[in-house]
């Protein structure tokens, strides 16, 4: 098992505002990742 798979998902210890913050962090990071992807065809053309 990797370290990430061991993450404890017990969210009951979080306050309501922390719960919202966690979700916003995740969503923002997902958006960040989508933006960071490099389109391979474009790179090939440039090469």
């Amino acid at each position, binding site marked *: 098992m990797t370290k990430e798979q061991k993450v404890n*998902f017990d*969210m009951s210890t979080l306050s309501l505002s922390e719960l919202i*913050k*966690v*979700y916003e*962090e995740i*969503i923002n990071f997902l958006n960040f*990742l989508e933006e960071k992807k490099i389109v*391979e065809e474009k790179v090939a053309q440039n090469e």
Partner: protein
Amino acid sequence: MSNFLKFIEEDITAKKTLLSTMPTKTKRDIKKYNEKITDMINKYNEYEGSVKKYLDTKSRSFNIKKKNNDSEKLSNQVNSLEHVRFVLNPDNTYYEKMGFDSLLYQISNYYYFNFNCLNEIINNFLDKFELVGIKLTGNDFEYTCYVKEYMTSFLEVRYKKKSNYEEVAKIFEKIYWVNPEIIEHIELNFRKLIKKYEKEFNNYINELQKKVMLENRLNNYADCLEKLKKAYIKLRRSEREDICDIVDLAKTGEIEINNYFDESKFRTTAYSSLMIDSLNFDDKERMTNFYKKLEKLLINLEEYNNFLKFMPLFNDFKNEYEKQIPNSDKDLKREAVLKRLKELITKINNKEAKLEKLNKKIFSDGLGFFMFKNNNTIKELKSTSIKLAKELYELYKEYEQECFNDKVLSILTNSLTIPELLHLYYSYDYFKKKAIKKVFDVTTYDEVIKYSEEFDLFAMNPTNVIIKGVTVFEENNLARVIMNRYRLDNINVTEETLSSEELNVLIEKIKFLLRISEIENSATTVEKIWFMAQVEKFNALKNKEK
């Protein structure tokens, strides 16, 4: 991992650092880089799914079940009693009670409508006659030869229960270019028939009155008003904004829930601006009293808002009738109006008799022998009949105006109050709409109807309080009256905050404080409502993405 938020924050930072250090120069690098991103996305999609599920469950656990406060039942009761009041209104005759004034307003403003709407108006007239057992035929529509031609084809479609009025439309088109006043003449024909069957309509209304009084256990009109007032109060209580409504408003974003937190500057300012002497928030008794007064003020302000809205209508009436206020010669003035009414009725009857004679001559042409020999004579007769109809149209308008003037004179004094004027316009739909059109300078029929409906809601409300003693012809400063009343209760209202420009801000501020009180007295908290609103926002975003 003890804190999931901390883990996510650290993990994101680490992943961002990792990505920033990965080479992306070659195709192979990019492939590896993108694979890494895809792994991260997959992992974080898992997180997103789990957290979202948890948020939804948590949000649902905060939901409050809406109490069944019988609003629908109470609303039906009010509507039903409104109808009874309409039927029993002692100031109206069968003419208004059958809804003819309303239909005549519609048909006299026919230029607002398309052909289908016009047919609907005519069908509505015919429905009312059928309601009292009168099935009209083409022979009842002999006001002019054109009216007869049109209505005969119209009735054929109606009685055969066809829905296609195309043939009728063709006839209309043909007539219209010869006689553009055809719709006015149809109106005149209905006016004549309404007069003719007065007895039948009166009998119908009398029976209806007996029936509704029995059904509602009422002895008279005053009884009805009393019952209606109680029903209104009950309905208002049931429609009062409760905690479920507040949660819904927060979820839909109609209120900014962040303003409701204790530390919000908006909240602190709202309290301080509405209190003359600041109150201790821990003093439950004084705070409860403060909120109770705010609730009363809110009801008064909603009424005051309506008063301001229809002020131009009151001013117009004032300008129109101030000079006619009788001093000691009230009876003489009314006598003069009644005399004029009699004269007008005689004129109308004489002209209608003349028109009937003319029409008989024109219609006998249908038998055949008149047409060939006297084509020009027929043409002349038709033209005279149209001229007569035009004169009659003007006479009816004048007659109607004089009837209204008589009603006005019957109540016109220096001390005429706003509720009396509201009742007058509420009772005379035709003149109410006419005044609305003039005063508010509205250009479409729908706008007139919108104003008219708002006016009726205001005029019908038996719980109006602050306008009770306000007179039409004397100077009033209602804002000052309200201000003085509530300043005694430590509520800071000023003439400025009560001005038409500022009033809505004040109303919203009061609603805001009353919502705080409602939340504080409920099983939930501002934070929980905020949480539910946030989750709702996430859901909306997700739905948008789909």
